[in-house]
């Protein structure tokens, strides 16, 4: 079993427990082990785009350096740190590119880290779990483990921004990605393409400008449902929260609005691979996916239709 140094990010311990637990469960089936970095810190979520702010770059470099220390304790581990959250993925990748291009910045940050017996030497690669699935495991390997194809589930992939932007962080082509599409197909679900696959959900504006988020979410969901989708698949806990929670508010306001459940890609994998339902933490979703899954006969014994 290949061991990867795994950086969870703050949200996987709070709002997105189902994301983490399903990822760990399915990776075991695929002969991959995600080993959590001990004592990790928040990467900062968003990357500073300023040229002169060293302070805001310390957190992600600290993560990389802690991960490097962690990798040394693992067996048979490639020099890679794996993230599940797409915001962590982008923040860590950008900063690792930046410090490899700019020794001066790295020196300044290392000067801060020295007191904690940490340094970073550009010697680690950041990978999103989707990249591991695509490049190391392969879709065929995933299909082989599927015991319950997700028949009837019409899934529209929603990438959000941080999986595809910027250049340094993208895991696939920024205008024509296919990693989520291929994954959904390999699980036996029906693919529904939406033009708004990377239409920003409004991100952190949820804190103080909720109206921006709600208008974005309305368009994203509408574009997917109009094309027949009955579920969205995402890789970002903030996209997931925004879309999920806003849909519930919208459904309350107008009776005509039909909300659709949101899945993390690992949840779909866990369902298809026959993992126990409870690791999905569906109870924490605002739009509970269980009624739909029951209706399609994907969970539970009784088939209602």
């Amino acid at each position, binding site marked *: 079993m290949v061991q990867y140094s795994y950086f969870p990010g703050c949200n996987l311990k709070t709002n997105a427990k189902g994301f983490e637990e399903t990822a760990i469960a399915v990776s075991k089936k695929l002969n991959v082990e995600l080993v959590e970095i001990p004592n990790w810190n928040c990467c900062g979520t968003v990357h500073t*785009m300023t040229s002169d702010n060293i302070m805001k770059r310390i957190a992600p470099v600290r993560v990389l350096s802690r991960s490097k220390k962690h990798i040394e304790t693992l067996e048979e581990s490639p020099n890679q740190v794996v993230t599940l959250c797409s915001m962590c993925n982008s923040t860590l990748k950008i900063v690792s590119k930046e410090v490899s291009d700019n020794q001066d910045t790295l020196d300044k940050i290392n000067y801060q880290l020295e007191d904690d017996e940490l340094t970073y030497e550009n010697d680690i690669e950041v990978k999103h779990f989707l990249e591991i699935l695509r490049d190391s495991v392969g879709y065929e390997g995933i299909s082989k483990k599927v015991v319950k194809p997700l028949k009837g589930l019409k899934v529209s992939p929603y990438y959000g921004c941080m999986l595809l932007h910027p250049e340094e962080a993208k895991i696939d082509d920024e205008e024509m990605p296919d990693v989520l599409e291929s994954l959904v197909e390999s699980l036996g679900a029906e693919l529904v393409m939406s033009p708004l696959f990377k239409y920003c959900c409004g991100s952190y*504006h*949820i804190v103080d400008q909720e109206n921006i988020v709600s208008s974005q979410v309305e368009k994203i969901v509408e574009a997917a449902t109009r094309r027949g989708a009955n579920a969205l698949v995402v890789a970002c806990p903030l996209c997931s929260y925004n879309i999920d929670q806003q849909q519930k508010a919208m459904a309350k306001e107008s009776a005509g609005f039909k909300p659709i459940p949101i899945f993390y890609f690992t949840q779909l994998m866990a369902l298809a691979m026959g993992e126990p339902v409870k690791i999905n933490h569906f109870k924490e979703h605002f739009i509970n996916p269980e009624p739909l899954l029951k209706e399609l006969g994907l969970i539970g014994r009784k088939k209602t239709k």
Partner: protein
Amino acid sequence: MSYEYIKFGKEEREFRQKIEEISGENIFSCYQCGKCSAGCMFSDKMDRTVNQQILRIQLGQKEKVLSANTHWVCASCLTCSVRCPRDIDVAAIMEAIREYTLREEPEKIKISELPKKVLEKLPNIALVANFRKKTG
């Protein structure tokens, strides 16, 4: 019809240079094609589009740049940056306007005034991102 004279003095130059310094981008690379604003999914909520903001920076019109809501509506999705034909990190320029403001007035969002109920339900990822972008 009234006309506005374009001024090119020390103040204008200094503002432009500061934005260039913080963002690390050459503001005169922009040839105003408007692709950033066309692809921006928040353009409808901005009172001045992204390329208009850049033009104002080129002209050093500090007050006009800072009084627009453009950079506060921007959610750093980076679509403009990946699409710019002149390879300008447009989002970094929006970030520079934010930083310019925050370095003088560090609180765009008053954290201590956020209602407890809002704080309770929000995921920590949203708070971290928001405070990093909106407080200095």
